């Protein structure tokens, strides 16, 4: 690759030195951060790690199954206050709250993974092809993505959930419904970021050079453009993961949840706990809710930390001088330029197009 020539050099351009996501990206970011930003990033990483750990070890950690109603000594009983047998009490349906909170992390993780894989492949591919080839397909895709982007994402997710599951869900039915609903919301974001980057990169000298030596479109797209266009994706990934968890919970809360016998899902538990609140029963809602907050908070803190580090204006000042040129180009983030600009129309031409003309 042509960019490799400059790698590590003192005046290396962004593309060369910043391919951090391939070699333990987060460690690198932690090193780069200072003070509060480091604290927030580390707090986010700890919370996210905790979430992952609980999700993976759920069978070992949970005292009961997510759908268990009784043990050898009899039924658990409904709405039991926290006690030594049920540390966080039982739900209105007679399940153990702690167990469902722990098992719920697993469901959330499944949804994040499936949603990410789907939206990543579809969104990145569309953005790459659209940005690289341009033409009428590009225009149509941009208009479609803008239309979907401006739509209230929860409503879109509801419509997709109805389309996929007809409103009722088994474990995988529910997970796929939530994941695909979230995917449809995310695709425009991946599309926009990758497309904007592609449009910018395709006019770089190293792409021209590759063309001159006769590289095929496919090779240029995947080897030269894609690998440079995906630098900001870890950031979008963390933000989308947190969005996925809250969308899943919101869908569950609105009645597209996964049946309690099929899996534990926090949003569904909160829906069932809504009536408890009025009678002062707090443990059925507080714990699943806190679980959502912790996971979303952790992922958001990581995303926010990465976002700050990628934006030279936000990075804590002491380091700004050292590497601002290096990072300046990485602040391409989904919708950033579009939102800050006139909104709407700017997307038609691609944010980077505009900037280039003005300079």
């Amino acid at each position, binding site marked *: 690759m042509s960019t490799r020539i400059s790698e590590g050099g003192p005046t290396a351009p962004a593309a060369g030195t910043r391919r951090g996501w391939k070699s333990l990206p987060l460690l690198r970011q932690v090193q780069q951060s200072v003070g509060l930003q480091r604290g927030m990033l580390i707090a986010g990483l700890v919370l996210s790690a905790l979430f992952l750990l609980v999700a993976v070890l759920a069978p070992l950690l949970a005292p009961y199954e997510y759908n268990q109603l009784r043990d050898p000594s009899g039924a658990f009983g409904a709405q039991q206050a926290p006690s030594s047998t049920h540390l966080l009490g039982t739900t209105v349906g007679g399940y153990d709250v702690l167990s469902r909170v722990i098992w719920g992390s697993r469901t959330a993780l499944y949804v994040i993974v499936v949603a990410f894989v789907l939206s990543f492949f579809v969104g990145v591919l569309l953005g790459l092809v659209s940005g690289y080839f341009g033409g009428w397909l590009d225009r149509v895709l941009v208009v479609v993505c803008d239309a979907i982007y401006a*739509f209230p994402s929860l*409503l879109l997710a509801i419509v997709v959930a109805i*389309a996929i599951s007809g409103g009722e869900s088994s474990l995988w039915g529910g997970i796929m419904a939530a994941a695909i609903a979230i995917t449809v919301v995310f695709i425009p974001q991946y599309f926009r970021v990758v497309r904007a980057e592609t449009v910018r990169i395709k006019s770089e000298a190293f792409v021209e050079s590759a063309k001159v030596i006769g590289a095929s479109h496919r090779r240029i797209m995947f080897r030269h453009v894609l690998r440079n266009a995906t630098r900001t994706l870890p950031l979008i990934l963390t933000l989308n993961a947190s969005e996925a968890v809250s969308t899943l919970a919101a869908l569950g809360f609105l009645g597209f949840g996964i049946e309690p016998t099929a899996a534990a899902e926090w949003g569904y538990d909160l829906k069932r706990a809504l009536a408890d609140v009025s009678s002062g029963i707090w443990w059925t809602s507080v714990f699943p809710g806190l679980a959502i907050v912790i996971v979303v908070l952790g992922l958001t803190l990581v995303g926010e930390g990465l976002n700050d580090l990628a934006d030279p204006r936000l990075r804590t000042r002491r380091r700004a001088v050292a590497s601002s040129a290096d990072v300046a180009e990485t602040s391409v983030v989904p919708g950033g330029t579009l939102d800050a600009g006139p909104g709407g129309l700017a997307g038609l031409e691609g944010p980077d197009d505009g900037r280039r003309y003005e300079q």
Partner: protein
Amino acid sequence: MTTTTTELVAGGADPDTWAPRAEKRRVGGGGLGAYLFIRFLLIFPTIFILVTTVFFLMRSTGDPITAALGGRLTGEQLAERVREAGYDRPLLTQYFEYLGNVFTGDFGTAISDRRPVTEILTTFGAATLELVFYALLVAFLVGIPLGRLAAYLRDRWPDAVLRVFAIVCYATPVFFFGMLLKLVFAVNLGWLPVAGRASTGADIQLQQLDGSTGIYLIDAIRLGDGEVIADVLEHAVLPAIALGLLTAGIFLRLVRTNVIGTLGMGYVEAARSRGVPERRLLKKHAYRPALIPIITVIGLQIALMLGGAVLTETTFEWKGLGFQLTEYIEARDFVAVQGIVVLLAIIVAVTNFVVDVIAALIDPRVRY
């Protein structure tokens, strides 16, 4: 709730896009009129795409009659109803008919209670509008001053506290936050009502008012009864805070980022070197230009708030469009769901247009 990315990222804008002195140098840029005209025309493909997407998604699982009444009717009765409603015709025929209907303002009729969707909108839309208005008020009052403060005290401890506050605001699902508020302020402390838009007595009085607007605060003021006004306001506090703080967190972040951006601009340095006091610098030089991008983000915020309103209304039994939407979801009445969703999509598209017009009027660099 589900828009963290957009919001987080909206702050990451390029300073050039709103630098006060940046000049328009786009070759062939049209005037304001041309821009507004093109922007207006763009509403139609947006709505068309959304109507089409929603229609085919909703119909991909089969016809709405079977979905709503499947278990309750025999196969023959069901087939009869399906034929009556015309759902046995080719999908494309139905699609074009639906497009035509939407174009003439007919969004379908609910299966469960046989109400036209437009009537649902006029009955319940006012309640949602009222809630969104209160929430926006909370968001502005909390988000913008705190964002300024955070920018001013950048990297010191109040900034840290405010930033964590902002993140917690949008990490907390609006319905969970609503439930917590209910637990603490309504159930345990008993300060505020648990749910609804007004107490039963007040509710009846307001419903019976001649020429009722559906916006309870206005109706209560017209009724002229101090107790009813207080009652309506008491009921609004918790839902407004629940939905408003979500957006406040986003505003806080956005204002902070933008003010920090403008504080670093050359003209602010120049003003500082002329001896302009720091306070005035923040107020006049940095703050005002920083508000322009916020106006454009509000359009997206309203879309977000409609999603949040659905959840808030369900949590507080606030009888608006969102509450009604969940009722229809429970009843598996997908004609009504589709109608409400399409209507909201049109409202969002038009709102975004209006916001873009306002942005263009304020900021002369927004032209094409």
